[in-house]
């Protein structure tokens, strides 16, 4: 069947099988491999993307369910050659080691700050409960998110 959605501002129309997951559509059909797959049970969050601005685990929904949606993946978060402040904060704060969880973490964090511009540390941790990281022990990730929130507070 036919699905059409916008991924990172580019329209993607393709004929696909109904069982194709959104994450498969993003990775294999649209060829955007920044979105990772770390599990088969919707537990790890490495596949997190923004769907109409909200973070979702792209392995939990079918591509057809995202028909007509605006999707932002890690590749589309910032203009080419630039970094989104959240990406910059992760890089600055050594919030990654292997980096496999990073795209999902960054997008979950961006979505959190959209809903809650000034989260407490505990709120950040709760928001990340669905995103697993095996390398960092999370502290630098939390630090990066709080730093990005702080930086955004500075009046323009």
């Amino acid at each position: 069947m036919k699905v059409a959605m916008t991924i990172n501002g580019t329209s993607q129309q393709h004929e696909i099988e109904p069982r194709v997951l959104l994450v498969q559509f993003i990775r294999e059909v649209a060829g955007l491999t920044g979105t990772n797959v770390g599990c088969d049970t919707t537990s790890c969050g490495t596949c997190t993307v923004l769907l109409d601005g909200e973070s979702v685990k792209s392995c939990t929904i079918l591509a057809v369910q995202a028909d007509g949606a605006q999707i932002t993946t890690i590749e589309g978060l910032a203009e080419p050659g630039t970094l989104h402040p959240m990406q910059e904060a992760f890089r600055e704060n050594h919030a990654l080691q292997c980096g496999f969880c990073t795209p999902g973490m960054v997008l979950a964090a961006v979505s959190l700050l959209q809903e809650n511009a000034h989260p407490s540390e505990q709120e950040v941790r709760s928001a990340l409960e669905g995103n697993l990281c095996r390398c960092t022990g999370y502290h630098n990730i939390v630090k990066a998110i709080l730093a990005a929130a702080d930086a955004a507070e500075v009046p323009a």
Partner: protein
Amino acid sequence: MSDIATTHATKGTIGENASRPDGGPKVRGEFAFSGDLWADGMLWGRTLRSPHPAARIIAIDIAAALRIPGVHAVVTAADLPASVNYGLEWRDQPVFATDVVRYVGEPVAAVAADHPEAARQACEAIDVQYEPQVPLLDPAEAAAAPPIHPDGNVFRQLTIRTGDPSARGPIVVEGAYEVGMQDQAFMGPEAGLAIPADDGGIDLIVSTQWLHNDRLQVAECLGLAPEKVRLSLGGVGGAFGAREDVSLQIHACLLAQRTARPIKIVYSREESFLGHVHRHPARIWMRHSAEADGRLVSFEARILLDGGAYRSSSYHVVANATCFSAGPYKVENALAEGIGVRTNNPPCGAMRGFGAVQVCFAHEAQMDKLAEACGVDPVEIRLRNALATGDRLLTGQVIEGTLPVARVIREAAALPLPPSPEIADPMTRPGGAGRTADAAHVRRGIGFAVGFKNLMYAEGYMDGSAARCRLSDGLATVTCAAAEVGQGFVTLAQQIARTVLGVEDVLLAPADTSIGSAGSSSASRQTWMSGGAVEKACQAVRAALLQHVADRHGIDPAQLTITDGRVTSTDARDSIDLAVADAAPGVVFEEEVEYHHRITHPLDDDGQGDAHVSLVCAAHRAVVDVDPDLGLIRVVQVATAQDVGRALNPLQVLGQIEGGIAQGLGLATMEELTLRNGRILNPSFTDYLIPTALDMPEVLATLVEEPEPGAPFGAKGVGEPPTISSTPAIVAALRAATGKALNRVPVRPQDIALGDGE
């Protein structure tokens, strides 16, 4: 090019928090993990695995699988052109099972198809007739049981005997302990792409810890010269020991050779749990005796490690567990017996801490028992027995390098404690908001533990690493096959090159087999071994550059030095002051070197010998809150002091400490692969739980810097110590809070609430 007279210190050198060169690509989603690879015309490979822990294979019929549209090849053991076995250290593991299967998950066949779904259907269509056998599942029975493999059921039995093991002090404590099967559970599942080459060889891009060892095993099984098998490192999504053994490498290359098409294999999470080795489950008995003041008189241990169906690194895990079984304490009379056995359980091998983790859980429980029996504070009893430079290990080896055990104990104990539970946020009580514990019931406990282990491989292994450095007009390029698995070696390689050469622009060539082996990214060895190789290669280039400048000016190169990015002379009469970038315009300097550590020796019949290159230690203090009625746990804080030699990049060291503590917390309170009849019951992240951001305690860390003689820059590897003593510290805190014995990890809620942990 002229430069201004003021000099600038080179940025990003040793000791600074230089940022990762792969940080930008990783936050942008541009970093290519091995599962992201793609080649024109590629096929998808998939593995068929045994559903039985022990069975005879009567027949394999692949005809139906081959008829499925899109299927290009089905291979079994019969298709291997050369060696049919592989193995990290010893080739005892069939690439595909032939007449028998020995564990649930053992590969039996592999297929290549033009779509993953066709590959899946083909695997289902392969008809394997099994005749199930009674599996050998209890490691305690393995040594005496009929062999389940031609190499027998004992991987290694090691006895360490020193002094008079029958000596007894007036205080005796004894205990039996158990450690469950932990998994490395890295986030990026196994993946690789094998591409057949025109010369009859294969190019394999794969996520691994050790390119050259994989290459050798692939070459042996495919009947190719090693030079014809070229490996390069695909982006690695964590490792922690699980990528030291070959997983899909040989399967993918065989299918590529067979079909003359590129083959991509990506494991699902479930297959990842089946397809790599785990941490050895252990049963440990120990008896310590001491003087009334707590000073150790004797130590006895019996350590049983279940290695599962194949050897992997069991031989050396037994050595580590036995050599370090007494912990970082002085004891003159000892008898320690370690044994690693073969069973029909999943194979076990390397995981962060490598044998030291299991025994640390036991010896630290014992030290607490001893403290109680002697009426001495747990921190004090450890200080009274702490090993130091000049002391002997159980193996008789005299500690020649630094080992600041007393100092890490004191520094960890001196870190501030968290606020008392009454004033804490209800969200942070055991169980969190959902299952809030009754605040009045919450009890706090504090526990302390110390651990140590070796760095690098041991027992005479000739370990080395190769590196190449090229310098041209101020741009340095470093080539080394060390696998970056997330630990940050790439950052260190740049920092080292900047420090030696005084340049800021350092490129890292891709890690591949075009250069000699760098050895494995394991045993906390790359900072030392490949760091040493990079340093040596850069030093050779530096010498060549200085020689070149000296020749041009007709002076002795010994007079020249590089400081703050400039070549200057130590003799004030020479007016040489050149930026490194301008010192030799158009000249290319290139040097390739090999680095080795000092020679070690095998252990003798009494387990005595100078077997270890260097030692490292750490201490952890844990604070927990527990609701004893519900069995709910919250680890509030872990404070640690770690022996790091010298912190080459303090921020990265801290990252290793926090990540390692997370894994130690996992083993203490939640992580275990549970088996029934040899089958892993929980091969998923819904059932194999690892710590989340909410589970992580506050971490306080002190880096103890006592440079290690002989180590490049005095630095020790830092990856493993955080996982060794964090687990026993947390369990000690749980014991303090609950009064339960808790002799097994992971500690489950029912162990606390229902008294199972007595």
